[in-house]
């Protein structure tokens, strides 16, 4: 096989997705508005195909396109998570699109492009390809956030996201240019080499550290870690709910994957320099996520703070800077994505006489009116609070294990204490559902696709403890491949 076809084979999932997305775009443009439902279905099918392609690759680490692109087990695993998030959110949005008159073919197509950007991010092996993937993702997301342009809140969310997102992209780009200026290369392996030679004993160039700080700041914005989180609650609240579900899952995983690749790859030798930043960001995220969520009345805002808190927990693993830590983060994100998909599935079912509801109080008495919806949501809430034997605890178990092993005791203590505070607002939702008197029931049935999502995700969360090895082994292999490369 020639060099170029090898490169193409390596990026086959991405290329397939790009072609399919453009084909669907054409289809949508030529067939007009009526094709929205069909395109939604075809988009899900395309993502499933890509998921299948991704699951085939990654057994060995391959570089492609002159080192711009890397495919390894780590990338394959994270891409799988990203695609899972994208597929399930698209499936869940079908009914929402029908009933809320959001039947625009742009929505699924833009989701495909955003997903493509995320796949690029996960596989980026160079600051340039990193930026290209990130921007493809971000620009698509800005538009999806504002897809209901007649809705004031949706447009506001889109605009806010765009302005702040552009700022963060600027910071990221500035950081990249500083790094290039002081290291003389944008390629991750080359950067690693340069830094490995300087880091023994001597301090790396100061400008490079500044560049690294800007890079972290830009990426922290994408994962909505404190202090770069302010956009999250507003955007989560304003965006259409299926879009919020998408925001809370796939882009988070992609950005965390990217952050880990950057930190552990090229800057792996500078652990001492960036560890304190990650520790600070992690603590701040956990605290803000726990305390700010207490007073929320809108469940989407609550989920925004919840996701900030969860990112804080995931960053504990990165702060450890070890293979165990990376494994913990991967495992945590896998569980996080399942919990969030399930929870947003429940939120999307909060509909009374055809009107979507978003207040937490609307869940009152759900255990009496819709018991089979209350049960999964309760499982997700206890899981997010990190109570064993649910999967959320297993996720926390591994990141804290890494923190203790790395000697980050203070971080671990703050982490577990904020998780107690966080438990309060998750329990509050259980309280509304189970302890309070019933309100009006929600519309039912919720549809077979939604039921499937709820049953599957709650079963995973409930029973993962019995067979932790299944995901854990994959996460361990992924972490090993990240550090080997």
């Amino acid at each position, binding site marked *: 096989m020639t060099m170029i076809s090898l490169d193409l084979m390596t990026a086959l999932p991405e290329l397939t997705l790009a072609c399919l997305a453009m084909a669907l775009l054409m289809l949508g443009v030529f067939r007009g508005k009526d094709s929205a439902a069909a395109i939604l279905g075809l988009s899900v099918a395309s993502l499933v195909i890509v998921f299948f392609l991704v699951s085939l690759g990654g057994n060995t680490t391959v570089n492609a396109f002159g080192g711009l692109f890397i495919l390894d087990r780590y990338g394959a695993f994270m891409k799988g998570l990203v695609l899972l998030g994208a597929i399930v959110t698209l499936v869940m949005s079908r009914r929402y699109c029908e009933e809320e008159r959001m039947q625009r073919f742009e929505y699924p197509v833009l989701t495909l492009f955003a997903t493509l950007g995320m796949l690029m991010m996960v596989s980026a092996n160079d600051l340039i390809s990193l930026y290209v993937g990130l921007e493809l993702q971000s620009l698509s997301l800005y538009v999806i956030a504002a897809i209901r342009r007649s809705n004031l809140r949706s447009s506001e969310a889109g605009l806010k996201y765009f302005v702040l997102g552009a700022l963060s992209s600027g910071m990221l780009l500035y950081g990249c240019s500083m790094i290039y200026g002081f290291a003389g290369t944008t390629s991750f392996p080359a950067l690693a080499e340069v830094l490995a030679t300087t880091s023994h004993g001597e301090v790396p160039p100061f400008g490079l550290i500044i560049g690294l700080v800007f890079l972290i700041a830009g990426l922290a914005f994408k994962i909505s870690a404190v202090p770069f989180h302010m956009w999250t609650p507003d955007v989560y609240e304003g965006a259409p709910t299926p879009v919020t579900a998408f925001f809370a899952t796939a882009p988070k995983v992609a950005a965390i994957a990217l952050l880990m690749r950057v930190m552990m790859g090229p800057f792996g030798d500078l652990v001492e320099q960036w560890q304190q930043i990650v520790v600070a960001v992690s603590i701040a995220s956990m605290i803000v996520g726990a305390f700010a969520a207490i007073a929320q009345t809108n469940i989407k805002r609550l989920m925004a703070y919840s996701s900030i808190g969860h990112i804080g927990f995931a960053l504990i693993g990165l702060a450890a800077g070890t293979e165990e830590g990376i494994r913990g983060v991967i495992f945590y994100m896998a569980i996080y994505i399942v919990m969030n998909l399930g929870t947003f599935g429940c939120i999307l079912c909060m509909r009374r006489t055809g009107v979507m509801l978003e207040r937490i109080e609307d869940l009152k008495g759900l*255990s*009496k009116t819709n018991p089979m919806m209350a049960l999964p949501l309760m499982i997700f809430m*206890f899981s997010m609070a990190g*109570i*064993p*034997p649910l999967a959320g*605890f297993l996720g926390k*178990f591994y990141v*804290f*294990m890494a923190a*203790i*092993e790395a000697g980050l*005791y203070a971080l*671990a*203590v703050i982490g*577990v*204490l904020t*998780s*107690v505070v966080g*438990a*309060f607002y998750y*329990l509050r939702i*259980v*309280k509304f559902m*189970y*302890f309070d008197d019933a309100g009006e029931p929600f519309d039912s049935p919720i549809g077979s696709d939604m039921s499937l999502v709820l049953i599957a995700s709650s079963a995973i969360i409930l029973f993962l*403890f019995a067979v*932790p*090895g299944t995901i*854990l*082994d994959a996460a*361990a292999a992924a972490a090993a491949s990240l550090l080997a490369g």
Partner: protein
Amino acid sequence: MENWPILSLVTFLPLVGALFILGIRGEPDVVARNARYVALWTSLATFVMSLFIWFNFERGTAEFQFVEQATWFPGYNIDYKMGVDGISMLFVMLSTLLTPLCVVASWDAIKVRVKEYMIAFLVLETLMVGMFCAQDFVLFYFFYEGVLIPMFLIIGIWGGERRVYSAFKFFLFTLAGSVLLFLALLAMYFEVGTTDIQAMTAYGFPASMQTWLWLAMFASFAVKVPMWPVHTWLPDAHVEAPTAGSVILAGVLLKMGGYGFIRFSLPMLPLASEFFTPLMFTLSVMAIIYTSLVALAQEDMKKLIAYSSVAHMGLVTLGTFTLTQQGLEGAIFQMLSHGVVSAALFLIVGVIYDRLHTRLIARYDGLVSRMPAYSLMFMIFMLASVGLPGTSGFVGEFLVLVGIFQVNTWAALLATGGMILGAAYMLYLYRRVIFGVMTKPDLKAILDLSPREVLVFAPLLALVFWMGIYPMSFLDVISASVADIVESHRVALLQAPGHNVASLFSLGQ
């Protein structure tokens, strides 16, 4: 049945019943009735199976028995390992005994969401039994913490007026303590390389580490026991919980704290346990005297018994940290006795609460004239709680006092004083509720114990006398394991290189 995984069967049989109940469909009345019967038969079957453990348990050895082991987290040395020794076996029996009684006690008292209620109780039973059987720290933690979920729901859904507040307080207090235990568990895991409890016990942690680990464990177990001053969740939880919830809470859940001290703090961290003994004595004596005084002033029967539980558990922690054979045996015996007696007392309160829907002492008087059988039953359990010779309460208290007199006479003196207060508040309660002339008009038609209620009390009554008159059948089980703990503690203190107070003060070096 020789090679059956008997402990796993006993642990997970209730869960099977719970799944079965989950599948029941139909008319609300039919569902409720079927759920009650399935729960009753499942819990009875579990109890019968647990009798197999009782009869086949080899006395006179400190070894773990009925051990089962299977890989759980591949590659991490974290296994699914179950086993019982003399300390845990009786708690398993206590849990399997109390659950069917709770089901029967809730037969008519619980009218709404019966299906969910029975599921919660069966899940709770699985978690309780599993916790006492777990021989792996991570497995233990799963059960230990998992208990919070069903108990939170039981208090919150079927509780009284302030149930939401109480449920949250219960959950968050206990969780706050437990997460520190979780970190201690991880730190110990990295030190030892496995979470096998026996391996951890044999390991011998460095003195500097022991202090921190001990404090982290203390945070968790002290809340669970509960020790003064972190006991405040207990009166609230007890008052608001439904009767059966209180029974399990007092009967088994509080014992998880005492069990934790005996299973983890003492054998794994002997130096720190020795170092913190004065602290434990102080807090225990405070608990005994202070909560007894508080109990004297209570207007609510359940609250009074809740405070008496804190006092009795204070005696348990006192006995535990004497680290003498008698003290430890007494502590375990006292826990078992308290498990039976306080469970019975909460059921006693439940009987009249079901009739009049109030727990205020002032709303009752002269019950003896309408409810003679009830009054007799109340008297026996009340006196057992006070520690009358011939009842189970006496044996535990006596052994603890024998233990503590060998170690610290001041603590013994104060604890005895607290026990006199205990007699005072219980007799005072009994006088106000049972004796006197019945003046309240709504009491005139109150009915005595129904056959179903007698059925609930009968096994507890038998146990109170069995434990009080012939305690050997229980002490036989306990003593070998206790002797092992006491001996290895002594050896650990002797072997500790340069063991002195200063080495413990160098915190975290």
